[in-house]
Structure formats: C-alpha cells, structure tokens
C-alpha cells in the first residue's frame, strides 16, 4: 500500500541520475573546486534524509539546488574567521579558484562580488534557476533576487568591459 496517496514522489535514484551533475557543478561554483565536492555530498545526504518526509513532488531540482546553496552558505560561515564585529570583506575568499576554471577572468570577477550577489548570479546562471528559485535558495523575495542579479551583472560588465547585449 502506498504510504501517501496524495503525492507520488519518484524513486530517489531518478533524482540522483537527473540532477547530480547540476548539484556538483553548482556546489563547485559556489564553494570552489576543493570544497565543492564536500558541499555536493553533504547536500545529497540532507536531501536523502529529508526525502521520505517530502510532501510535494514539484520543483525537485530547485529543492536540491536550494539545499546545495544552504550547504555552501553553512560551509562559508563555518570557514569565516571569527570577528568581534561583522566586518566580512566584500571579497569572497573561498569562492571558485578562478585560475583553474575556463573563463578565469570572468570567475575572478565573480569571486570578488559580495557574497549574496555572487550566490544569486551563480544560482541564476550556473544553477539555471528562475528568480523564484533563486529567492527560495537565498531566503529572500524574487524582487530582491532580481536586484542582486542585476547589480552583480552591472559590476561584472564594468570590470570586464563588456557592454550590454
């Protein structure tokens, strides 16, 4: 007998097969090549633990990427040196190591964005989420997501000297 008649969630393996590359890629983009794999693994462990209690089968990809973003945030906070005041530098010290990436100039510039902007554009473009998805992952509103992304793009355009297409 089915445990729940209202939702029919796919077998967890189907999620893994469909999305593990996206989760791994996003985790690397958010946490860098060294910590990215740990972030992805931790995200999958959390998703696996939570899956049997999940009540909606909608947007499972977005759900997985949200968990990935939260794991990256947790790691980022845990790594940040303790300071008496919250004077976190604008430069993300643990973002992707730009030198190892294709398009290093771009990713070096992304790395220097404020954390929320960096997360927002990474979720939007590497994660391929819409503003609702980005907002859910960052605990904010779609309007705020739109602002973070457009501010980030403006900064990148100035830095890289590319014009609006």
């Amino acid at each position: 007998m089915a445990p729940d008649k209202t939702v029919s969630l796919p077998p967890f393996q189907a999620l893994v097969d469909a999305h593990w590359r996206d989760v791994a890629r996003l985790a690397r983009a958010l946490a860098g090549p060294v910590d990215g794999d740990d972030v992805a693994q931790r995200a999958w462990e959390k998703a696996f633990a939570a899956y049997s209690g999940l009540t909606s089968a909608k947007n499972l990809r977005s759900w997985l990427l949200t968990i990935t973003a939260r794991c990256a945030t947790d790691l980022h906070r845990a790594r940040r040196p303790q300071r008496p005041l919250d004077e976190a530098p604008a430069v993300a010290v643990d973002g992707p190591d730009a030198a190892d990436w294709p398009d290093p100039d771009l990713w070096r510039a992304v790395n220097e964005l404020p954390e929320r902007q960096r997360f927002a554009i990474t979720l939007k473009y590497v994660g391929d989420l819409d503003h609702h998805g980005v907002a859910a992952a960052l605990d904010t509103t779609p309007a705020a997501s739109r602002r973070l992304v457009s501010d980030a793009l403006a900064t990148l355009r100035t830095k890289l000297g590319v014009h609006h297409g």
Partner: protein
Amino acid sequence: MDDLESRLSRLTAPDLKPPVFPTADVAYTLHDTPIGTMLLAVANGRVVASSFGDEETMTNRLARAVSTRVLRQPRPLDDVRRQLDEYLAGRRHEFDLEVDLALATPFQRLVLTDLPTYTSYGRTTTYGELAGELHKPKAARAVGTALGGNPVCVVLPCHRVIGSSGALTGYAGGLDAKRFLLNLEAKS
C-alpha cells in the same frame, strides 16, 4: 541572454564526483543473466523484486509500494545475485532468501506465497492443478494472470506452472526464458 550571461551559464567543471549514500530503504541492481537482464531489489533484507520489468517502471512501483528512498546499490544484492547465478548454473535447487511481496496484489500473494511448496524443482504443474491446491478450482485463468505478474520471478518459481495441454503459455521474461529454466531444471 546576452554574452555575459551565456558565459556565466557555460561554466564546465571537470571530474565531477557522484554522491554516495548509506544503504537505501530499497536497494536495487540490474543483473545480467542467461535469461536476460533482471532488476533485483531488497528492502529490509528481503527480496521485493526479481523482475524482467524495465528500470523506470519497477523503481516507480517500488517507490510507491515500499519507500521513495530507492537507490541503485549493488552491494546489498550480493547474496541474491550469488544465489541466482548458482541456480542459473544448475548448482542450486532452492533459494535461501526471504521474500516480501510488497509489489503483489492480495490475490497474487495468495497464489505466490506458497508456490515453492506447490511446485518442486524439475517438475511442472498446471494452472488448473495449482488453482485446485489453492481451493479455487475454477480460478485457473486468474491464477495464470497472478503468476504472470509475479514480481519475484525465478525465486518464486512461476515458470514451473504451464498450460494443461503442456504448452508453456507465457512468461514475463519471454517463452525462451521459461524454456531455458525448465530445461535447466530437467537436466540438473
């Protein structure tokens, strides 16, 4: 999407690592055998599937009937695979496995549960005879249908049941598979 946006979305990361998991509620594997690829699955140490059905259909059924935490994990199936291989090589006549008929209907459970006691290695019985054993002498056709949907093929030997004319009638793995199994048992 402009040039900058497409550059952002084009990030490629080499050598991505797939995640690893603790043992799933339902662990399954695809196992190649002389009678075709079989999907084998265990839950709580019991065999829930030994089937010729395709992966997507079977894992969806397992997710609905047992648990959504279904994963492709070969290790928990080691014993099942070993026993199946021994059987298919003629070196084993009985399975030492616990079966869970979570995928079966109540009537299928009635027909399948005691199948190993109503049949024996190397011998065939008919749908009508089996219906008689189950005290449902008029239900030969329903018994045939129930056997045709056996989720735990080979381990529960539905292949030993044939038509009263001696025709093999049908098998989830195809008639060649049924013939292979009956020949194997006749020789061994």
